[in-house]
């Protein structure tokens, strides 16, 4: 089985809670050493999926395989996975070292040996010498790293992370996610990462699986999802796009020419055919010029955010969200503007 160590497979997995179907049918394969993010709005089934993998929920139907072994009916304590919880779930009555050694001792390792391994685990996350403290004596970021160390010392086939950064402040979040990604690359374990924050998903993942209503809406590398969203939902969920109605006029050599809002714009064709379509336009792919133009609008509101300005622009196609990172002086509310498109950040949606 060493060849498939760390591989994860969901085969036709279904999960019902009473009369509510959380996951109708899920098929998903994760390669060894891959970091896969389950991304989606709350209630989309991403946490349920993770908990089924951990053994904290039992699927109603289907099979789950870890490392080639069917674990569908295996209780959580007998699965070769470990989990980092959203609340960290550090045992408040045990010291940091006891927390990290807990899983090793549960597995039957002698106390002394387990303490040694725990110390190494703490080294790994940069907390050497903190083993004697209680979790309540650590900062949020330190607690988070203890939770990671506690899961990692077991050398599981798969590491599960359930919104691991949601209790950290924004600045710390960026640093810790880089640390987690570095650890994963260095040690080469498989990781499944649940989050509702698309930026976090884009930053850490090998592959993102976007879920909606218990189904996979789209999966792919961060780049694929950002550049070619398969649906309006994906376009909006990943990187907040404006979705505009448009007309594909012609397709040639991988480039389609579309008419949108009085402008004519070349975009990557994907599988588009001439006819009515929808165009996802990133907020930073719209340019605003004071004055009149073919695609005209009026500034409905403007918010100055330091390094960029956010606008709501009223147009014939509805209200658009525009982000201008180059503005020196924000445009005034009520000003008339001409809208244009940049080359990147536009995608046709089937």
């Amino acid at each position, binding site marked *: 089985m060493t060849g498939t160590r760390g591989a994860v497979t969901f085969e036709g997995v279904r999960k019902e809670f009473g009369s509510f179907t959380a996951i109708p049918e899920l098929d998903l394969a994760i390669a060894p050493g891959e970091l896969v993010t389950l991304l989606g709005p709350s209630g989309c089934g991403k946490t349920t999926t993770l908990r089924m993998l*951990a053994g904290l929920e*039992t699927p109603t139907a289907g099979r789950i395989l870890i490392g080639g072994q069917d674990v569908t009916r295996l209780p959580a304590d007998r*699965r070769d996975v470990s989990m980092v919880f*959203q*609340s960290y*779930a550090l045992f408040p009555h045990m010291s940091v070292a006891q927390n990290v050694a807990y*899983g090793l001792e549960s597995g039957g390792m002698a106390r002394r040996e387990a303490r040694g391994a725990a110390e190494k685990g703490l080294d790994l996350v940069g907390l050497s010498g903190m083993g004697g403290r209680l979790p309540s004596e650590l900062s949020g970021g330190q607690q988070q790293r203890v939770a990671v160390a506690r899961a990692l010392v077991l050398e599981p086939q798969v590491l599960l992370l359930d919104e691991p950064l949601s209790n950290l402040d924004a600045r*710390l979040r960026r640093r810790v996610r880089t640390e987690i990604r570095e650890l994963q690359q260095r040690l080469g374990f498989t990781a499944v990462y649940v989050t509702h924050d698309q930026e976090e998903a884009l930053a850490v993942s090998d592959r993102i699986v976007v879920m909606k209503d218990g189904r996979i809406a789209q999966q792919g590398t961060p780049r694929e999802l950002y550049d070619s969203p398969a649906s309006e939902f994906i376009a909006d969920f990943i990187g907040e796009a404006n979705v505009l109605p448009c007309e594909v006029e012609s397709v040639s050599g991988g480039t389609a020419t579309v008419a949108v809002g009085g402008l004519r714009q070349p975009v990557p064709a994907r599988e588009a055919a001439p006819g009515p379509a929808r165009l996802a336009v990133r907020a930073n792919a719209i340019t605003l010029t004071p004055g009149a133009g073919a695609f005209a609008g009026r500034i409905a509101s403007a918010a100055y955010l330091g390094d960029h300005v956010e606008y709501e622009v009223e147009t014939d196609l509805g209200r658009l969200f525009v982000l201008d990172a180059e503005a020196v002086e924000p445009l005034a509310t009520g000003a008339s503007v001409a809208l244009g498109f940049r080359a990147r950040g536009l995608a046709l949606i089937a």
Partner: protein
Amino acid sequence: MIRDDRRLDFMLLLGAAGLVVLPWYRIRGGFFGFGWLGDWLSDDRLWPGLAQLFPDRWWLWPIPLLLLAALALRLTLPPSRRGRGLVLIGAAGLGWMLVEGLSVGLRGWNWGLLEATFGEVEGQQAYGAGAIVTALAFAGLIAAGLAERGALKGDAFVIGAIGLLVLLVATFVLYPIVSMFTGAFQDYDGSFTAEGVAKNIGDPNIWGLGCLTGGRCGVAWRTFTLAICTATGTTLLGLAFALVATRTRVPFKKGLRLLTVLPIITPPFVIGLALTLMLGRAGFVTTFIEDTTGWTLGRWLYGLPGIWIAQMLSFTPIAFLVLIGVVEGVSPSMEEASQTMRAGRWRTFRKVSLPLMAPGLANAFLIGFIESMADFGNPLVLGGSGGVLSTEIFFAVVGAQHDPARAAVLATVLLGFTLSAFLAQRLWLGRRNFATVSGKGDGGRPALLPRRVAWPVGVVVALWAAFTLFVYGLILFGGFVQTWGLDHSFTLEHYARAFSVDLSDGIAWTGVAWKSFWTTMEIALIAAPLTAAVGLLTAWLIVRQRFPGRGIFEFALMMSFAIPGTVIGISYVMAFNLPPIQMTGTAAILIFCFVFRNMPVGVRGGVAAMSQLDPSLDEASLTLGASSPRTLRRVILPLLRPAILAALVYSFVRAITSISAVIFLVSAKYNMATAYIVGLVENGEYGIAIAYSSVLILVMIAVIGGFQLLVGDRQLRRREARAAAARRTEEVPA
């Protein structure tokens, strides 16, 4: 998979041990005396189940056969394919043991119909160690089978725990109640008869409405009226106390809180006793009034008025305890919101605060109602000729009339009242559950009471608190006077008679109270940890595990809170006096009675404490490879220490003070303090009774005080740790 096999092997071994090694039937001298070991081979009453087959007990055959079938499954099929079979075998085994145990009694078949069909058979004793172990093995087979089928995430421990609890609750709560019902329909020889029920159910002494026309009402109506009055009174007074404690600037608020401890530590008839000595026919207040005014006050105290006053004194603190939580639970921001909308204090109180408290008031009312219905001690002392249901039940069993059918009917009526009240409250509450305490930090202070409410409420509370203190003072005082009401000279004689110790020849406990005192301590000490364990295990299952029927399970448990102690006592007598389970006259029946009577409180405490623990702590432990028992032991229990201590203390104290159920179950060998004191009261030995009660109260105060010190100390240390942590994190920026 090896683990599945090992688990199953253990269950099979257990079954084999029960069937082949241990004595199948009950041993008269007691199993744990181990006196039976010597005669194990020679005496056929001590033989194990397998040997019992041969003196013609053919109805035991299915049991070894089913165990063999399970063994066959174990040897031929892998775990994934035998689960269903194991469940069926286990269920069949338990079912069969139930059927044969109920069918074959001491002298053969229990029912004529069976005897006619199968011919006469030799009788059998009650189940003993062997049968109980075998039954547990069958239950274990069900659990193992379900786990192998992947039920409850394949956690055999959780399934086993649920199975064990269901088995215990069925045996010690449901079976007695059912036995009580059937007992009402049985003749002396056990055959069916409706005569007793027919005679009793229409008895005007129970249901008569004569008081409307100037005569006497039936005992059911009297009890009901009393319960309504007590519930109303205690709720109003409790609310008054709660409002004064939280919403006025009255000093001594801490002292008010101390009042809440009183009912827990007071043996139930003590207040009745004190009232008799004060207001009874020869009470000193009565004598004083009669002497100074020349009126004749007579026996007004004996009957409903006296019981009502005693119950008000006994149960107001309980209502206060419930309502102080309710009153504090009304979020100040609601009231502040109301005041900013130009409602004055009075309008705010009437339109916002009171309606928000309504569910809590209903809860306090229900508790008062049930406590009053279930109260046994006060009516026993003060009932006079007009008793209530609980005392009537008692006299139907122990009195000259000895009429078990009447006791069963009365107990059913009593149970009917309390359960209806419980269900009615649940229905009413269903729509009205205001969660007024949000998780968000609520600022603001509770609004003070409007002046026109504060004054009358304050006066009432002060008077009542003074009255309560006076009554308790009397109890202490009464132990030190010669003869209450006649001769008030100081004496230590009562204490000497009750608690004298002779040191001349080692320690000899010569006082009359010692025997029942040590029995009480022993039984309370055994029952307390069992109660806490069963209660907290149940709480853990209810809060943390999702299993089919969980809602019903929880509901049934909470409902058992509404079963009056008298009903439990009478039902235990009826259920456990004859095979298949025979325990009357033992210490075990007292212990089981306490465990299942006090369990609901342990469950409530456990549920409350466990709901505050982040569920991901359990899950983290599981995903770190710790099994459920290890999780429970290493993570949950250490974090629940205060709740465990509280459950321990509560069940210990309750085991000492309870009387209603106990009085049916005590025996000459195992007499409890309260039952002994009641005997003293009946003999008119008030002095010793009061001295003994005072000692009990002091013992319990010591226990509770020690517990407070323990927990308080713990919290202090935690706070220090947190302060230290705060300092350290400041030094080491993250």
